[in-house]
């Protein structure tokens, strides 16, 4: 299927579809978490209510905050919204390169850190530095596992990777270690326990978001929620691709798994996440890379 570019920007897979999926993911997250904790939980539409309420609230910029304070959430949202368009699911002509996807994804993390630094609050600064540290921690296994995938599929484009899986079956079977390494990165990427170190509400009051309010906070929250959907989808495309409806189902199941992991784990510390990613996950990814190359 081929779509009009305008439609593709604003409806599928652009703003509207991604937002709907995002609110669905976030709603499932809130509800499932509550049910697993023996509570009734908020209504499914809760993330949407929160979003509208935040948009309608006042928003202030601290006096000492830099100009990037306002732009960081916008850039974060814009860059994260680009990613779903690069997925090969929609049949768009510019199905993207996996390296581009990774760097556009990182853009939103970096913007979170920038927002934290520019908000002129010690909690924001600590949160920002934790975000950057976190980025360094998971970047290595992320890069290695993606290279392993690309080499195995013989292509660096997402479409090529998907095609290869349609022909040879899911890459998960061929690269199980790289897959585990990649999946372990997801909680760090989207800020779930055990790796929600930058946002830790009980330690640094929400880290980079500490000075944000009103529409700026709404945009940041939305971009974080879009990230949940996007990163999960990316994992599905890289390792579990079959066809477009299986793509949605696998994504949902994977999401449930991550909610479950979040629920049963505590937040680890920065050093511990470094040790985890570099000593274990990077090694796993390397094993598969070596297997593929040989």
């Amino acid at each position, binding site marked *: 299927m081929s779509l009009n570019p305008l439609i593709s920007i604003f409806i599928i897979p652009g703003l509207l579809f991604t937002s709907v999926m995002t609110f669905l993911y976030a709603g499932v997250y*809130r509800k499932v978490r*509550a049910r697993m*904790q*023996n*509570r*009734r*939980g*908020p*209504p499914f*539409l*809760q993330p*949407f*209510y*929160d979003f*509208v*309420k935040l948009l*309608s*609230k*006042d*928003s*202030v910029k601290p006096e000492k905050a830099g100009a990037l304070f306002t732009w960081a959430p916008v850039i974060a949202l814009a860059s994260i919204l680009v990613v779903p368009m690069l997925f090969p699911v929609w049949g768009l002509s510019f199905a993207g390169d996996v390296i581009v996807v990774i760097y556009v994804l990182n853009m939103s993390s970096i913007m979170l850190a920038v927002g934290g630094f520019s908000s002129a609050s010690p909690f924001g600064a600590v949160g920002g530095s934790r975000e950057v540290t976190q980025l360094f921690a998971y970047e290595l296994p992320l890069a290695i596992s993606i290279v392993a995938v690309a080499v195995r599929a013989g292509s660096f484009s997402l479409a090529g990777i998907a095609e290869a899986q349609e022909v040879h079956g899911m890459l998960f079977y061929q690269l199980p270690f790289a897959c585990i390494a990649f999946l372990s990165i997801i909680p760090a990427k989207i800020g779930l326990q055990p790796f929600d170190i930058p946002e830790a*509400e*009980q330690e640094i*009051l*929400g880290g980079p*978001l*500490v*000075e*944000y*309010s*009103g529409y700026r*906070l709404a945009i940041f929250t939305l971009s974080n929620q879009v990230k949940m959907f996007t990163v999960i989808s990316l994992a599905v495309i890289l390792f579990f691709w079959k066809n477009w409806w299986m793509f949605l189902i696998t994504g949902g199941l994977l999401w449930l798994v991550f909610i479950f992991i979040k629920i049963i784990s505590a937040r680890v510390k920065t050093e511990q996440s470094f040790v985890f990613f570099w000593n274990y996950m990077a090694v796993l990814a390397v094993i598969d890379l070596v297997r593929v190359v040989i």
Partner: protein
Amino acid sequence: MLDKMVNYCRKKSPWLLHVSCGSCNNCDIEILAALAPRFDVERFGGVLKPNPRHADIIVVTGIISLKMRDVLKRLYEQTMEPKAAVAIGSCAITKGIFNETYASYGPADKVIPVAAYIPGCPPRPQAILHGVVTALNALWGE
């Protein structure tokens, strides 16, 4: 129409900022207990937020002790409009048993405007939930 929707969303998503200003801890614990499964304030969309910038409803407990008055004022100013304050427990309403103390600037409404009062020493979690929901309806309901 849009107004109606926005008000509905505000009613459905109260983020609470809990400020304890010299209480005996009991109201604070009952507020936390309202989060727990038996009472579950999240049914109404309520979440306890650590940060005044994110909050809508300020939940005040305790007599306003000497050192907390300015802190409470500042937290109230930092909270974004639209906002409301709820005084929880006898101490925050009338200073309760600590009425004659030297170490207080008076009940909460002498320091910040208070929208709702939830009496009790301590109020039960059900009372807290009921009070907050009633206040929400009064503020942004039909």
